[in-house]
Structures are given as C-alpha cells and as structure tokens.
C-alpha cells in the first residue's frame, strides 16, 4: 500500500484560480437547469394529463425518449445540433445549459405528474363547481399542493442533477471536476486532485441530502 499523498500544494491561489470558477459554473448550471426543468417539466406533465390526444402524444414521446437515452449522448447531440440550428457556434457552457434544461424537464415532468395525481380528484371537481377554469384550477388549487408534496423528490432530483453536471466533461466545459483536473495537471498532482474532487462532491451532496431528509419530516402534508 502506498499512501504517500501530498496535499500541501493546495493553496488559496490554486482554489481561486482553478476550482471556484468551475464550482460557480456547476452551481449555476444546477440552479438554471432545476428552475428551467421544473417549468418545462410542469408544462409537459400538464400536457400528459390534459386528456387531449394531440397534447399527450408529443409530450409522452419527448419524455420517454429523453429518459431512455444516456445523458452523455444528449449532451453530445445538443453540442452537435444547436450550432447547426443557430448557424453559429456556441460555447460548451451555453450548450450544456440548454441540454440540461431540456433533459431535466423530462425527469421533472414525471415527478410533477405524480405530484398532480397525488391531489384527490374531488378538489378539482370542487374547483370546477366554483366555476374555475382549467388554468385557475391548476394554478390556485392543484399545483401549490403538488409542489409541496413533491418538494423532497424535486430536491433529491436536484442533488442528482448537481452530480450529473460533471458529465459536461464530454464536451470540455469548465465545471468543478474540470477545475480539479486542470489544477492537478498544472501542479503535477492528478491523484490528490481527484481525491479532493471526490471529497468536495461528497460533502456538498451529503449535506444537501441530509437537509432534504430533515425537511421531509417537517413539511409533508400527506403521510
């Protein structure tokens, strides 16, 4: 066994030069993709529950299609296609952002669909009896409760999403993992860099999932 590691090369200069830039991108990508994914995912879920075939079919194909393809392939697809559509090259970071919103929308839509279905039908009928339109019913009665019921699952998905941002490695975008890799290369210490990356990811994800677990106990309406 060989445990002669040397972490002494880690300094504030290294962290601020290489890691923070990547961490910032990883966190921003997670936040933008979560908000965008929940927005479009809710639209997709409403389409699938609308009872109108011309809305159900395209939404189902989109969601099931996205969910059966590896994220890395989706990242590669968008990196290839988006510049073709726009007619101009866009950076790896912008391409990754578009990809993650589109990809996560499929996963968030399944969560929102379960959330909407968790609301008893009687409440929708009550809304209709009061003369509410479909939109009012959704906005005022169903969605607020669906969000609340699904919040722990939505947040858990966000933690998974944060881990998945490391996959932008495939198109060379500069995220936190890339930051550690570049720092390790520049200082000739790749092994210590990967260990540090693993520890940082673990600490972030573990603390977040611990918070979600605590919150779950506090806010659940059902159970």
């Amino acid at each position, binding site marked *: *066994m*060989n*445990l002669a590691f040397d972490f002494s090369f880690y300094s504030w200069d290294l962290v601020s030069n290489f890691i923070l830039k990547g961490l910032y991108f990883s966190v921003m990508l997670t936040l933008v993709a979560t908000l965008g994914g929940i927005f479009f995912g809710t639209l997709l879920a409403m389409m699938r529950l609308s009872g109108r075939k011309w809305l159900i079919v395209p939404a189902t194909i989109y969601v099931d*299609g996205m969910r*059966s*393809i*590896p*994220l*890395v*392939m989706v990242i*590669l*697809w968008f990196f*290839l*296609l988006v510049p073709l559509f726009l007619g101009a090259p866009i950076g790896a970071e912008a391409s990754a952002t578009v990809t993650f919103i589109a990809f996560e929308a499929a*996963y968030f839509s*399944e*969560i929102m*669909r*379960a959330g909407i279905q968790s609301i008893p039908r009687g409440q929708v009928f009550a809304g209709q009896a009061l003369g509410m339109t479909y939109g009012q019913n959704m906005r005022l009665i169903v969605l607020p409760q669906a969000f609340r019921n699904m919040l722990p*699952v939505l947040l*858990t*998905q966000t933690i*998974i999403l944060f*881990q*998945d941002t*490391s*996959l932008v*490695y*495939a198109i060379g975008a500069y995220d936190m*993992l890339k930051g550690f890799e570049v720092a390790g290369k520049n200082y000739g210490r*790749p*092994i210590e860099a*990967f*260990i540090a*990356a*693993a520890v940082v*990811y*673990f600490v972030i*994800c*573990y603390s977040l*999932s611990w918070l979600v677990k605590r919150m779950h106990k506090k806010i659940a309406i059902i159970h």
Partner: protein
Amino acid sequence: MAWDWQMFCEDTLDRTVREGCFGTDGDITYLDWMLSAWGWTVSVSLLALVLALAAGVVIGTIRTLPDSKWAVRFGNAWVEVFRNIPLLVQIFLWYHVVPAIFPAMKSVSGFVLVVLALGFFTSARIAEQVRSGIQALPRGQRYAGMAVGFTTWQTYRHVLLPNAFRIIIPPLTSETMNIFKNSSVAFAVSVTELTMFAMQAQEETGRGIEIYLAVTGLYIVSAFAINRIMTFIEKRVRVPGLTAPSAAGGH
C-alpha cells in the same frame, strides 16, 4: 443537408467503401466498430449489474439486521459514499487513485475498472431498494419466522428476501436500464463502448448526425429489451395478491 449512411460501410483506415458493409482480413468498417462497441456496452453493463446485485443485496440486507448496530452503520456508510459522489468522479478514482494506492491494480484493464466503478455505484442504489423492500413487509412476517423457530438467516432466506425481491422488481428494472445508460460514462477512460465510438467516429468522418442516430437507436433498443425481459421475469415470479408500489425520479 443530405444523409450519408454509406459511411458506415467505409473502412476505418483508408475510408474506402467496402462491399457488404463488413470488413475483411482484419480490417474493420465503421459498422463493425459500432457493433463491437455495442458489445462492450452490453458487457460492461451486464457484468456491473451482476456485481451491483450481489453487493447491493448483501449491503441492503445487513442494513435491516436486528441488533447489529455496526453492520447497519457499515451498510449506511457504504450507501452514502457511493451515492453522493458523481459516477464520473468515481470512475476517475478507480482509474487514477486506486492503482496509485494499490500497485497491484496497475495491470488491471480500464474495462475491469469501469465494471467495478459502475457496479459499486449501482450497488448503493440497489441496497437502498432492498432495504426499503424488506422494511415494507409487514412486521408479522419476521415474527412468524421467529415463531416457527427459524434462525435469522433462515427467516431472511425463506420468508423476508423472497417477498422483498418481488416488491422491488419494478425499481430494479429501472436500475438495470440506468446501468446501460450510465455505462456511457466509460468513454472518459477510453473504453470503446457506444459513446466512445460516437465521439471518435464523429470526429473522423464528420457525419455526426448519422452516427448519433444509430448509437441512440442502439441505446433505445437495449433499454426496450431490458424492459421486456424484466416484465417477463416479474410476471413469472408474481405471487397472486401481492402488488408493488411504483417510484418516480432518479436517472
């Protein structure tokens, strides 16, 4: 833009179109390459699945053992470690860090390291499902096992595990499909599976759309095949009157 599917019949070295689309005398076409890449994807996934099931069942079971605090703690730590580090980072750990700590691992191929990484990563998720499957059973089943004089091992072997497995088949199905999707991360350490093929062939030929379509198609075919196989198993082992809860989320 025009389609060019003929590039699949081109030799990978001199880029001449081969008759019959398959290479001869040791030369390979892009079609040969893609099919062998599919083989690597399937091999990585299936071997990782075997490892993940074995480790996941053991870890998930010991997390439910009565009166064994340290076994439960070990199981919990296992799940937290493998679940809270991104798969790509875990693959880098196996590829760069483990051989540096254990010099004996230096001669191990990238393929084996990816199987280990993907297998242990997935074992944490399977362990979580096995645990919740066992805990979803009515407590009376454990007591019934004790009442007829079973040891703990016999209670698990004959009462708890057979019931728990049937409950967790639907989440296991999605986990199996996830393994196939996650095997794509092996591109990062140059295992020539489908995603690696897609990236390299795209670069060499410039026919990205055709190649990505073909590779995406193979992933969808694989996912569909697993879904059918697991549904078949689920029907075969079903006990009348027992139904399983479904789950959402995850990748």
